[in-house]
Each structure stands twice: as C-alpha cells, then as structure tokens.
C-alpha cells in the first residue's frame, strides 16, 4: 500500500545569530489513508517544525531543507509556492494550538471559511457561505447560520477550535495536521474536541497527523506513534508498541512522568532529570544520553533508528541497549519509568535558548 504521505530523511535547519540550528534531523515516517498518527515530544523536539515544513510554512531566507515529504506525486519540500498554495488548505489542512489567536479578529468566521473555499474551488460566494454554515453545523456549533456572522472574539476557546476544524475540512482534505489542537483548551473541552476529530476521521477517512506533548491524548486517539527528541525520531511504533513495549529510555521517562489518575499516588512524581539539549550544540552521541540513567560507553556514538527484525517489525528505536536489557530496565518501582537521582538534577545543563 502506498502511503498517503511519506516523509523521508527530512532535515530542517535555520541560520540564527548564534549559529545553525538543526530543528529537524533525518526524520522519516509514513501516514496511511484514514490513519491517526501521533507525533509526541516536548518543546524543541522538532515536532511542530516537521508539521509546518510539510505545509511549506517554514520556508524563509534563513531556512534550508533536505529530504522529502511526498504527497502523491508531489514532493512538498521542493514544490513551487504555487503548487504549495493548492496543497495548503486543499489537500492538506492544518489546525493550530491556540484558537484564540489563529483566527483573524477583524473578519467574520463565516467569511474566513468562505475565503478558503473560494481559494480552492470556483464557487460563488453564496454557495460557499452555505457550505460554511453546513460545516459549522457539522462540527457542533449551534445556530450555525447566525454564528457564521459572528467575529472570533464572540466565541469561546472550544468553539473557536471547532471553527478551525470546520475551516480545515472545508475543502475535503486528504490529510489533517493538528498541532497541539487541545493544549490551550480546558480539559472538558479537550475531550470534546478530540472526540470530534476522531468522529470526522472515521466519517471522512482523512489521515490525521496529531502533534502533541501529551501521551494521554495519544493513548486516547492514535493508531501509531512517533516519539521525537531534540530533532530526531527516537522511537516509532504502533500504539501498543509504544505504551506496552517501549524501547527508548526517553519514552520510558515520558510515560513515567505523566501523572496517572488510575494508579495509586506515588511518593514522588517520576521525572526525567535535566533539560533537553540546545539544538545549536547537540551532543555528538546519543542526544538523550546526558539525561539517561542507563548511558554507557556506546552512547558517545550516535545510535541508529533500528528494529529487532527489519522484515517483520515496524517498531523501531534509537538506542544502544539490547532489547532484552531494555525490557528489564524500563520498569521502575513496578511501572514504566526512568530512574532519577533525585533533586540535584534541575539546574545543571546548559540553559536553552
């Protein structure tokens, strides 16, 4: 089966005053039709830059790219601006983290949706507005016809995110990229929005790329997961691979440090010591080694992303530990986690820009 979207060895660098910042480093993954792929990572992991690059939104005089992001027969990394304009909002739509600022405050929401429809399809204003109203109604905005005439500030955060979703769906995209779509929302609203994205995926069969820092969100909605750290993919696999058989110590730490409401309250919250490395001065070996309690000699050389059996195993990890050793070490105090030598860990490492 050919993938809907294939990202191959993508690399993104930005020239800054302090040097060249490699935000995305050799990232590869595929998104299948109707699939929900979660990309998880903390700030600086490169997950958002990856998504924005697929949309062609990171281009600029200080950016340089290599690798490919193939959509059908088009490589989005090298596509012309004209080609990208057709892809954006047409074949690939995107929703963003902060619905409070993602909509233009001076235009009515209906008009903002109409604008997108008319950019991609030759439809007259009235027909486009009827479509916009239908879409708003479909994503659960009450009195859609009336509300289409409202301005963004007249909506709550959750409702604005619904408007964003309606807008994203307006041209029946093949792919929906959702960059932290619920991070700025309240928890009850987050649950509603995630449910909405899940429903639309099933009904419309769009492939969804969900970018989040929250493994809980991933657990609820994703089919497959890519874990990113310091610009690289450190682990990739199915939902159960990542949650029940994680191979990379960073994934263990991440899973361990999410407070779990279904388990007993631990004495101390498990953490990952230290802070992520600066993307200007990356460690030469394994990028996670400085924070990893299990590092050993091999970690001074960069590990490759590999699976146990390339023939059958799509679960890959970027770690020097043998799989059976890893399986032994990833359990701390009965749950997945990373051992920590207590509270001296914080200040240490280089301050991040």
């Amino acid at each position, binding site marked *: 089966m050919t993938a809907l979207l294939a990202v191959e060895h993508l690399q993104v660098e930005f020239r800054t005053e302090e040097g060249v910042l490699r935000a995305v480093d050799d990232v590869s993954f595929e998104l299948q039709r109707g699939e929900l792929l979660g990309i998880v990572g903390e700030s600086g992991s490169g997950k958002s830059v990856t998504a924005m690059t697929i949309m062609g939104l990171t281009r600029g005089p200080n950016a340089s790219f290599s690798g490919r992001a193939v959509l059908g027969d088009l490589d989005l990394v090298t596509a012309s*601006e004209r080609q990208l304009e057709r892809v954006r909002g047409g074949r690939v739509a995107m929703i963003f983290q902060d619905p409070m600022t*993602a909509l233009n405050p001076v235009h009515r929401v209906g008009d903002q949706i109409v604008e997108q429809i008319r950019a991609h399809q030759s439809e007259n204003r009235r027909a486009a507005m009827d479509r916009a109203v239908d879409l708003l109604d479909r994503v659960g905005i009450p009195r859609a016809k009336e509300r289409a005439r409202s301005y963004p500030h007249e909506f709550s955060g959750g409702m604005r995110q619904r408007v964003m979703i309606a807008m994203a769906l307006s041209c029946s995209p093949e792919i929906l990229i959702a960059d932290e779509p619920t991070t700025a929302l309240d928890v009850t609203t987050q649950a509603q929005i995630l449910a909405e994205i899940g429903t639309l995926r099933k009904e419309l069969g769009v492939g969804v790329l969900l970018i989040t820092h929250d493994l809980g969100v991933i657990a609820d909605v994703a089919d497959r997961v890519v874990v990113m750290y310091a610009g690289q993919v450190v682990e990739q696999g199915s939902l159960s691979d990542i949650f029940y058989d994680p191979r990379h110590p960073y994934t263990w730490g991440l899973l361990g440090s999410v407070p779990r409401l279904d388990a007993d309250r631990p004495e101390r919250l498990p953490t990952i010591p230290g802070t992520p490395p600066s993307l200007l001065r990356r460690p030469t070996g394994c990028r996670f080694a400085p924070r990893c309690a299990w590092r050993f000699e091999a970690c001074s050389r960069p590990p490759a992303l590999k699976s146990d059996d390339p023939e059958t195993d799509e679960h890959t990890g970027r770690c020097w530990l043998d799989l059976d050793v890893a399986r032994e070490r990833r359990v701390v105090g009965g749950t997945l986690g990373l051992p920590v030598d207590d509270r001296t860990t914080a200040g240490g490492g280089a301050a991040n820009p």
Partner: protein
Amino acid sequence: MARFVLRRLGSAVLVLFAVSILTFLIFEVIPNGNPALRLAGRTATPANIAAVERIYGFNKPVYVQYVRTMEQIFTGKIVSYATGVNVISQLKQALPVTASLVLGAAVLWLFFGIVLGLLAGLHAGSTIDTGISALNFLGISAPSFVIGYVLIYVFSFKLHVFPSSGYVGLADPLGWAYHLAMPWVSLAILYTGIYSQVLRASVVDTLNEDFVRTARAKGLSHRQVTLHHVLRTSLIPVVSLSGLDIAAVLGGSAIIIEVVFDLPGIGYYASQSIGALDVPPVLVITLFGAFAVVIFSTIADVVYGLLDPRIRVAGSR
C-alpha cells in the same frame, strides 16, 4: 454608537472651554499685550488709550473680558484688534485654502506611507527595508521649509514648471492642483516618513500573528494574505494616527508651508495674528484647531471601531 459620539461631543465642549481660557490667559500675561496701545495708534495720548480701553472693555476684570470675547466669537461679531476686520469671515476665506492643502497632502502621504510601509514591513531586514527606512528618516528630519524652498528653487526658478506661490480656487481645478502640487509634496514628505515607519512596525507585528500563519495554511495566495489579512489589520494604528494629524494640520500646523508658498490659509493667518499680538484671531483659530482635533479623533475612533470588531464589544472573556 450614537451615545459614544454624543459623549465625545460633550467632552469637546469641555476641551474648547479649557483651550479658550488658556489662550486668553496667555495673552493676558505676555508683556506688551495690551491691545489698547496699538488700537489707539502711534501717537496716542494716555487719554486716548484710556478711551480705547473703555470702549473695548480692556479696563474690566479678566473674566468679564473673557465672557464678552466669547460672546462675540459665538455670535460671529468678533473683529481683529489690529485690522478691525471680522475674524470669522477671514477664517471662512482661509479655510478652503488650508483644507485643500491638507486633504491633498493627506491623500499623498497616506498613499505613499502605506505603499512604502507595507513594502518595508513585508521585506523587513532586507535592502528594500533599509532603503525605505533611510528615506523615511530623511523625510522626517528634513525641515519642511527647506524642502519647500528646494522645490521652489528647482521647479520654479530653474525649471519653471510649477508656480512658486499663490492659491487658485477650486473653480479652476487644474489651476488649483497646479498651484498646490509643490505645497502638497512639501507637507506630505514629513508625514509619509512617519506613516511609513508606523505601518512598517505594525506590519512586522502582524506578520508574526498566528492568524497570518492560518491564512497561509488555508492556501491563500501571497496577495490575498498580504492585502486581506496583513494590511487590513496593520492599518488600524494608522487610522487613529491620521485622524489626529489631519486635524492638527487643519488647525494651523501647516503654518510653515503656507508661509513658504504664500498661501493665504489658516496657518498664514495665525502667524500674522500672533506676530501682531492680535488676540481675537488667535483665539478663534486655536478654538477651531481644538474643535477639529476633537471631531477628527472622534471620526478616527468610529472608523477604528469599524475596522476592529474587538473594541466594539468590550469585556468579552
């Protein structure tokens, strides 16, 4: 909306009251301010002066003089102490000249300010930006009378393409524009610089807004993003600024240009009256200026509200 405008007009009355008192008092305290001395003529005897003071009421307490003067202003009867000519009719003659100057120049500075500011903002950091900024600062820092005289020297005395002075009424539109072309340019250069810089900063801010990223992610063309999202939002500060600037120039700030090009406008009238320590015209012009500021800033605020729906509804949470 109506309530808002009424409130603003109410506050205008207070502003005018304060401005008139202040102007009146300034002339009361400056030395040699006694208009009776000049009204009585060069060879006046103290008795003449006293007589003049009595006729005009200069021997009365200040507040009585103030009330009397105000009464004359609002009944349109006020006359100049220096020339004896009715001030209101003078103002009516000067207003079209100044209005022509200001509105023409405003069209120029808004057009060029927006074009240059947008270009510089969209290409922030590039050579285009640096070049435009240099031009802007040149325009802002060059005194307008220098620009005016340079224009006169080049285009009137050397090339003989534009007249160096004079005003032709709108009855002859070509002559009107022909005579005003150089004054327009001289006045507009300063404001073009300012507006271009303001818009540039606003554009740079707007480009970083999330909604601009959304607009691009929607697949809009560069043109649509620039005009419909970036420019539309960036214009908001320019609108409120232009209200005040147009009002200020209308209220007499164009003095220098009017003097340089010999245009009998409000600024020219004001400069002559101030030179003659002639209280009535100065008072009338000052009041007119203050009134213009209030009116234009109210218009600017209403337009601001139309451009930015967020301020129409406050307190949304």
